[in-house]
């Protein structure tokens, strides 16, 4: 990553994340035990350009949700920097962030817990406008109405409670809620995983449509490679808190070379793929070696080098990088 030392932002990039680290203390089993620490996010750096959708993929517990929450300032990172629209936002005070805050929005995973069950839909939407200082009822209505039809809903839904809506309708409202404050970046965390398959496609298409029209940048977080492939311009593959491979969408999807990416791709093609991947332990149980490759325990190509030295990003193609020592061996084995 050549841009790592250069903390000035590209003019066409909207978000830049540098060396993000987030750790959680694990609950100690005995009283005087030394506290163990779980590293959820480890040295994550990436960039999102204006109007771009970046897909962040990884298994559950790999830290992808933590990344999303750090960007939206729901979580404080232990170290690292987040630049948004040219401004460093990870360390600034809440008061100074107020203006920028509405420019980053989030769509949550489960639409049934993302809307206050005690409020009617209209009230929820008005609260979003209240947060950016639009307090007059007529102004609020003028803002809500045009967007309402854009997400495929009509005025009658404003008087309903969230539980009177279907999952897809709720997610449409959540999307509208995110759009109301006129954001430039949306963090979409597993937005369709709680929905029926038939509804998933509708929601994804709606998001693509709105993205084009509003020129939004989206960080699309998911564990589903197909959905990521459908939505994204670029893909980041995350494993145990680290980004192990990133690159343009088609490149990673067709020619992903990191062993973990290949595991994801093969599990996609064939559920009964022979288990060359070693024993698949739950990633949270594995203890990371400070100096070894993060994927060592599950990698079929592992050797001493992987145990002793952490791999760095190696270039695979234009803008396509992977963190592995044995990319050439893997490449050769595929032929």
């Amino acid at each position, binding site marked *: 990553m050549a841009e790592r030392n250069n903390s000035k932002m590209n003019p066409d990039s909207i978000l830049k994340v540098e060396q993000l680290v987030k750790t959680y203390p694990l609950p100690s089993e005995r009283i005087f035990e030394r506290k163990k620490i779980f590293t959820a996010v480890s040295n994550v750096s990436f960039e999102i350009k204006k109007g771009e959708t970046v897909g962040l993929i990884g298994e559950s517990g790999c830290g992808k949700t933590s990344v999303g929450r750090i960007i939206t300032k729901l979580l404080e990172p232990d170290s690292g920097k987040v630049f948004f629209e040219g401004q460093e936002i990870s360390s600034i005070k809440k008061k100074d962030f107020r203006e920028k*805050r509405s420019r980053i929005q989030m769509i949550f995973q489960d639409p049934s*817990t*993302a809307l206050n*069950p005690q409020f009617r839909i209209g009230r929820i939407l008005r609260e979003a406008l209240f*947060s950016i200082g639009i307090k007059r009822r007529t102004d609020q209505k003028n803002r809500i109405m045009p967007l309402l039809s854009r997400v495929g809903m009509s005025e009658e839904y404003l008087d309903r409670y969230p539980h009177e809506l279907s999952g897809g309708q709720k997610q449409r409202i959540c999307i509208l809620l995110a759009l109301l404050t006129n954001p430039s970046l949306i963090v979409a965390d597993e937005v369709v995983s709680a929905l029926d398959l038939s509804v998933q496609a509708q929601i994804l298409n709606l998001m693509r449509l709105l993205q084009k029209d509003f020129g939004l940048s989206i960080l699309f977080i998911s564990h589903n490679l197909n959905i990521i492939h459908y939505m994204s311009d670029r893909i980041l593959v995350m494993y145990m808190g680290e980004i192990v491979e990133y690159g343009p969408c088609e490149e990673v999807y067709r020619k992903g070379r990191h062993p973990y990416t290949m595991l994801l791709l093969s599990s996609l093609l064939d559920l009964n793929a022979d288990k060359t991947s070693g024993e698949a332990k739950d990633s949270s149980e594995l203890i990371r070696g400070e100096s070894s490759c993060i994927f060592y325990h599950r990698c079929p190509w592992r050797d001493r080098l992987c145990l002793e030295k952490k791999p760095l990003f190696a270039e695979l193609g234009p803008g396509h990088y992977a963190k592995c020592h044995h990319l050439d061996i893997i490449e050769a084995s595929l032929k």
Partner: protein
Amino acid sequence: MKKAFQNRNLLVGSILVCFLLLVTLAGIFYTPYAPNAIDPNALLEGPSIKHWGGTDKLGRDILSRTMVAGQSAFLMGLITVSSSMFTGVFFALLAGYFQGGLGNLIMRFTDAFKSIPSLLFAMMVAAILGRSFASTAFAISMILIPQFVRMTRAVVIKIKENEYIQWTKLVGLGSIRIMFLHILPNVMSTVIITASLAFAEAVLTEAALSYLGLGIQPPDPSWGQMLSQGQSALRVSPWGVLLPGTMITMLVLGFNLLGDGLSELLNARTAKPE
């Protein structure tokens, strides 16, 4: 609405409470005798057509006194529950929302207060502030606060983790607005259930205090006081304690059933949004 009728606890509880409320309210406008009227010709009589509940050792009509005593019991419950509810829920919101520093401070205070036996505390208050309706109400309110704080805080912490509250922080709404506008409506069902159970406890505590002679002072009647007076003449006239005892039992049972029924009804509704 249909569900409410299928709910046995709720039905029986509300019937009991309504019945007692009716009897008590009737006492404001009509009692068979003046509650404090002494009749030396009718001491410790059993139930008769003239005196349905019998008379006590001063010849006062027990039914009339029971009805009037109900007024102070309900009034005491209403005052103590509402005042402890407001303070308790307020602190619970603070403690649940600002977990850590302020939250811990509030909870440790609550724990410390909870460790004082409630009757002992009420006696202490009576000793300091004197024996009166007001001091009893103050003591009972204080006793009831911790359970409001604890029950509500637990729910606040749960609600706070919901994405719709996370979202309010994301868009930068103020803490006060989040607490009172967004979280409070979602904990109201718990508050109502707790209030119903607290009402029963308030009445019971008041009866206990009056029984010990610390609550409502004679000649004004109260159920606990009537019990203690009836007890001294229990061998001669056992029916003296019958009516006030039944009233206390029915009221406590009624509010407990009401609380259970409400919790079934409200929790079922929130747990299954369909």
